């Protein structure tokens, strides 16, 4: 077993608690992203895994062995990991071949063996023809591929990536996401990927750990994360959402203007009187005529504001009475005039209570 486990991991810099009480387990061959806004502690976590920073609290285990703890940490060069840096960190004094071969030479592999494995990996990243170039003669995307090849050619126990695509232009960035995932499908290296870009995390990851202010708020597969956010932060960081406040009265949640049985919600509800639920703009249905209820909730109101975004309409629906306005996404053909009366249909199964 070569799973990676972070247990109660913490790190402070002076008075700043950069990482607090982080628990995360990766199965062998799993691809997990650390996703969160800038400054939330992603890099610090990743660099603790790499061994460049020592934790103040908790441990990191690889294959059941402790490699980092407050009392002792194994230096990076003895961890058998690889890392791809934000700056690429391609060595400009070595050719592409020499860059990629470096880790293999450190492992004292034979000349022929090195040549073969470097050749293979360069073919995978489509750099086979450029082996003798110097980094200064490569484009940004090509340098990125060199970094990738250099990191995976040693078949690391864990591959670490710190915002590897943030220096590329938008098109290339999109292409490289798939490239990275394809590489993972091929080599099955346990991977921790740091990014602040949610679509990047969604495309590449088996699971995403959303971080906020040094803590992990939720770890789940991308779809789960979107459909069932657990916290207010996760719900608003991943996509857009509406928050609705409700009071619990026995087995019923009472909102402004309607109520829903607790059993109809997307996930079981924790105890407590005041409840917040999140509902995605895409999960709401808007119509110009009153629809049949069919067990769903129908609210009457009007369009308070609207904007056409190209691939969707963005409506602001104001319910009659004093309920909060909701944002609704609708297909381009669904046109309702500004200020016109409208009916909103809510599927209780799309309401996600959050902590």
């Amino acid at each position, binding site marked *: 077993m*070569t799973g990676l486990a972070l247990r109660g991991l913490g790190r402070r810099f002076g008075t700043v608690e950069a990482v607090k009480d982080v628990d995360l387990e990766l199965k*062998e061959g799993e691809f997990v992203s650390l996703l969160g806004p800038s400054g939330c502690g992603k890099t610090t976590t990743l660099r603790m895994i*790499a*061994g*460049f920073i020592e934790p103040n609290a908790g*441990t990191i*285990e*690889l*294959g*059941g*062995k*402790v*490699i980092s*703890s407050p*009392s*002792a*940490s*194994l*230096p*990076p*060069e*003895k*961890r*058998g*990991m*690889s*890392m791809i*840096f*934000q*700056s690429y*960190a391609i*060595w*400009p*004094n070595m050719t592409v071949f020499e860059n990629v071969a*470096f*880790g293999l030479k*450190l*492992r*004292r*592999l*034979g000349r022929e*063996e090195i040549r073969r494995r470097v050749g293979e990996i360069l073919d995978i990243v489509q750099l086979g023809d450029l082996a003798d170039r110097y980094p200064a003669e490569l484009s940004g995307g090509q340098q990125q591929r060199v970094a990738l090849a*250099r*990191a995976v050619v*040693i*078949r*690391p*126990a864990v591959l*670490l990536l710190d915002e590897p695509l943030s220096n590329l232009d938008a098109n290339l960035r999109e292409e490289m996401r798939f490239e990275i995932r394809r590489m993972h499908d091929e*080599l*099955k*290296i346990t991977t921790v990927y740091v990014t602040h870009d949610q679509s990047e995390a969604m495309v590449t990851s088996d699971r995403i750990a959303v971080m906020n202010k040094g803590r992990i708020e939720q770890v789940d597969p991308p779809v789960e994360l979107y459909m069932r956010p657990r916290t207010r932060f996760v719900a608003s960081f991943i996509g857009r959402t509406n928050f609705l406040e409700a009071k619990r009265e026995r087995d019923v949640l009472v909102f402004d203007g309607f109520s829903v049985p607790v059993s109809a919600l997307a996930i079981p509800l924790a105890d407590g009187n005041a409840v917040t639920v999140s509902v995605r703009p895409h999960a709401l249905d808007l119509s110009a005529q009153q629809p049949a209820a069919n067990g769903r909730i129908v609210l009457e109101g009007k369009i308070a504001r609207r904007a056409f975004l190209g691939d969707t309409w963005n409506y602001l629906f104001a319910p009659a009475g004093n309920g909060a306005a909701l944002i609704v996404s609708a297909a381009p053909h669904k046109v309702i005039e500004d200020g016109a009366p409208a009916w909103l249909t809510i599927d209780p199964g799309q309401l996600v209570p959050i902590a």
Partner: protein
Amino acid sequence: MRPLALAEDSSMTSISSSQEAVSGTRSGRISLASRFQPASLLWLALAAVLVVLVVAPISQLVITSFTHPDTGAFTLQNYVEAYGRPRHVAALFNTLKMGAATVVLSLIFAVPVAWACARTDMPGRTFARLAMLGAFITPPYLGAVGWILLAGPNAGWINRIWIELTGATEPLVNIFTFWGLVLVMASNTFFLIFVFTTTAFEMINSEMEDAANILGAGTWKTAAKITFPLIMPAILGGALLTFLISIALFGVPALLSIPARYPVVVMQLSEFFGFPLRVEVAAAYSIPLLLITVALLGLQRLILSRRGYTAVSGKGGERRMVKLGKWRWPMFAYVLLVAAITLFLPFFVLIMAAFSKVWTSGFALSNLTLRNFGYVLFEHSTSQKALIASISLGAASATIGILLALGVAYIVQRKLLPGAGVLAFLCLAPFVIPGIVLAIGFYAAYALPPVALYGTYTLLALAFITRFLPIAFSASASGIRSIHPEMEEAVRILGGGRLTAVRRVVAPLLQRTLAGGWLLIFVPAAQELSTAIFLVGPTTRVVSVVLLDMSEEGRLELLAALGTVLLVIIVAVVALGIRIMGRDFMLRREL
């Protein structure tokens, strides 16, 4: 086992083989051996070396100045002896006056030429820069000899021609005077003001001046209100450095101040170092020089950190060259005049003397000879040995200094040790110690038993390394700053230690910077006099000291020949530096 397993192709095997690289244990303890980094020892060794090079000599200088030479007890007697006589106090004031005059003359030389080179369309700007560089890299004591040949009261060329032409009975000029001293000093030291000012002029964005023009300020008003205030900090910074260097320079007063009857501090120090030897009085006498230096450099820092400097450093955009029009050639003539005074005239007569049987006979086929060179290179054993010693010492101190500074700069930049800032401070500290004062410190610390290094090349090498450590450190630190730490982290995560990272990535990337830094040390070290004069023994003389000996013996043709050889070496090395680093490698200075 591990490489074999890694060579296996299936990813399963290789992953488990990577596992073997992980030497942690289940209990959460990681063995000392796997945590040990051989680099740690190196860091401690470097710190120890800095104590030997910097801390011990400086503290020994201060301690000696308060110590009774016989009893070893604390005393103020040394200060009484040093400053008890009016003659000794007068030398200090003479020195300050000479320094101030040197600054004024340096400004007159440097500022117009700097402006012409940086902001105008004057012809021959590259030539002008190279001439200024030439005046700087040539040793000041050779300039002094050149000027003795030109303006000695009796036999100097200028006077002889003047008397020939006019039939006058009195000489026209005399180099053995206060102003002669100042002229020769300024010929060498004005370069720093030139560099600082040129850099400042180049940083000024024309748009800053345009902005003033648009608001209605005319050319002169703009110059007075915008341009001048922007370069003022640079000029002041350069002027302060010039002052400090000139008050501590030994070579020029050694040749001129005694005949000029103008006693200065460095000559007084050398008197204390004569017979009877009174190191403790010399130490006491040198402390004010040290304090003045520290205070003025502090002042320089203050000036440069003020607003004016920030504006200048704010990256200039486009610079428009001032069109001089009919003033182009007069401006060039001024540059030629400065170059002639500071470089061409003195070194022309010096080189001419080197090829003469008798220097006073001047141009004549019958006077031409190569014997002087043959003599200093092959027959005169002292000068031959000194030449080899100077080159070896220059090379050794440059090499060791750069390696040492690189190590320290690396620790500091990568924050590898707590308190690394102290190491950086120690590397830069010798900057505030005049060479001649440093020599007294080294003498006090290492010359006598128990260390007993007097009369060895080791003592000279140690002192030279220390003297040029600040140059080495600035070069190394700026080089390392330019290397992204992730370059090294990439080595480490792939399995290389820190030393592997330094060897395979940092060092190759620093090659050019290090080569440049090496040359920046070699050039002054090979010609160093101030630090050497009290530390050479009878059998460990260096070129600069032998040159002084020859002047005392009145063998000016031999002196000229040996000086010319030294010049050729220096020029060759600088030319090499320009090839490697580009024309401006000595012309750029961080303030």
